[in-house]
């Protein structure tokens, strides 16, 4: 029963979501909207699950004095501080000028910006080492990368030509490749969904 019941729920829900799309009756719409609300509620509970999982992983790392356990202490302190400040004044805590928002703007924002900015340095270093004209394919990659990068730079009289080339690369070969990927992803997702609905794919239930 522990396995059959989830499979039955998934089967009924999955089949309903497929057939409701083709039946524009208000009773189906009502159930569909109800299901949507459920998904949003589950999404909110998933956040709680994430919090629990993060806390548990960090606490066990600290207890075991695993390498880098100090970072886990910082994670827990940060988590507890933001949670406390967030709940302490409710909606008022997210008004500008509160301590909660100061922590957001002066700690969280610079950390995120720094993490993202590091990409510029690593990309530059990686581009210097890897964009070498070793083979025909590498040459195509290099020339394409240069055209796409140079479209961001005003190049005087050749800007127009470069813009046209960059636009052609983005709207023709790039789009063809992306469409192929999306179609592949779509077919793969449909196949996986069918396997889940019919109980062939059961990895979502975890291990016994």
């Amino acid at each position: 029963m522990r396995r059959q019941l989830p499979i039955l729920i998934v089967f009924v829900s999955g089949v309903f979501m497929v057939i409701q799309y083709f039946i524009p009756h208000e009773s189906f719409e009502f159930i569909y909207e109800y299901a949507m609300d459920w998904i949003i509620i589950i999404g909110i509970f998933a956040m709680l699950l994430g919090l629990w999982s993060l806390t548990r992983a960090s606490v066990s790392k600290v207890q075991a004095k695993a390498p880098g356990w100090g970072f886990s202490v910082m994670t827990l302190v940060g988590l507890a501080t933001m949670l406390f400040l967030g709940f302490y004044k409710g909606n008022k805590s997210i008004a500008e000028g509160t301590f909660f928002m100061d922590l957001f703007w002066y700690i969280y924002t610079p950390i995120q910006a720094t993490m993202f900015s590091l990409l510029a340095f690593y990309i530059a270093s990686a581009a210097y080492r890897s964009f070498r004209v070793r083979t025909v394919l590498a040459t195509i990659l290099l020339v394409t990368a240069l055209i796409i990068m140079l479209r961001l730079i005003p190049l005087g009289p050749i800007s127009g030509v470069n813009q046209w080339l960059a636009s052609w690369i983005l709207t023709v070969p790039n789009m063809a490749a992306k469409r192929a990927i999306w179609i592949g992803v779509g077919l793969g997702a449909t196949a996986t969904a069918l396997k889940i609905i019919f109980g062939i794919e059961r990895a979502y239930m975890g291990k016994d």
Partner: protein
Amino acid sequence: MNFLEKLLALDRRIIFLFIAIAVALPLFFTVKLHIEVTPVVRNLHNALEALPPGSKVLVSLDYDPGSMPELQPMAESFFRYCFMRDLKIIIIGLWPNGPIQANSALEVILNEPDIKKKNPKYGIDYVNLGYTAGNEVVIERMGSDIPVTFPKDYSGSKTEDLPLMKGVKNFNNIDFVYNLSAGYPGTVEWVLFGVDPYKIKLGAGNTAVQAPQIYPYLNSGQLVGLLGGMKGGAEFEIATGHPAKAVKFMFSQSVSHALICFFILIGNFAYFATRKKKGA
């Protein structure tokens, strides 16, 4: 080890130093670059120009501070444009930090002299409905009932009590949707769950990394226009006749890109020169 071999084995810290200088130094100078408005940006601008004053525009800010340099100027220029044209703004976020980013952009724009003269009022000219968990399901649910999906605004007021939200039930009451996206959920989800089932008019601004992924939706007509990275943001500012942050930052971005191209070229030069030498 001769000079060319040293060049090939260049310490990455030297590259880092050059990049840091190339990014930071131009920020201290104001250089007017010639920025041409590309068709994808022009199309977005034209679609917005076609909206009559009083039209309701839903803005979904789906990014966090990591993508601020690219997307925040887009948010600011879009809000400025809406206020100048008397378009009504309804803000939401599929990312938890989105509505905070919106407030930050609004704070900048509402303090500009031109906008101050217009004196836009919260609840009448713009609202911030905050964040709701659920990713693409939120879009799907908004298609049938926006006040149910966002029962309260960012500051905790009832959505139904906000004058701007009177008569706004679902996407049928929204004239245009503008999405600023740095990943999932973002523009792709707005196309799949908003444009296709509910036929909303969608324009988007994306990070430069994400933009090529969005191009298929432009030619198919599912997306009316796209701002790709800071360049797209700068083009939009030019199109709206109000050059601002994105245009200013373009100089820094151009110099750093030119430097990367230069490094790639000298790297290849050194590679070929040393290979020829070894061959001989």
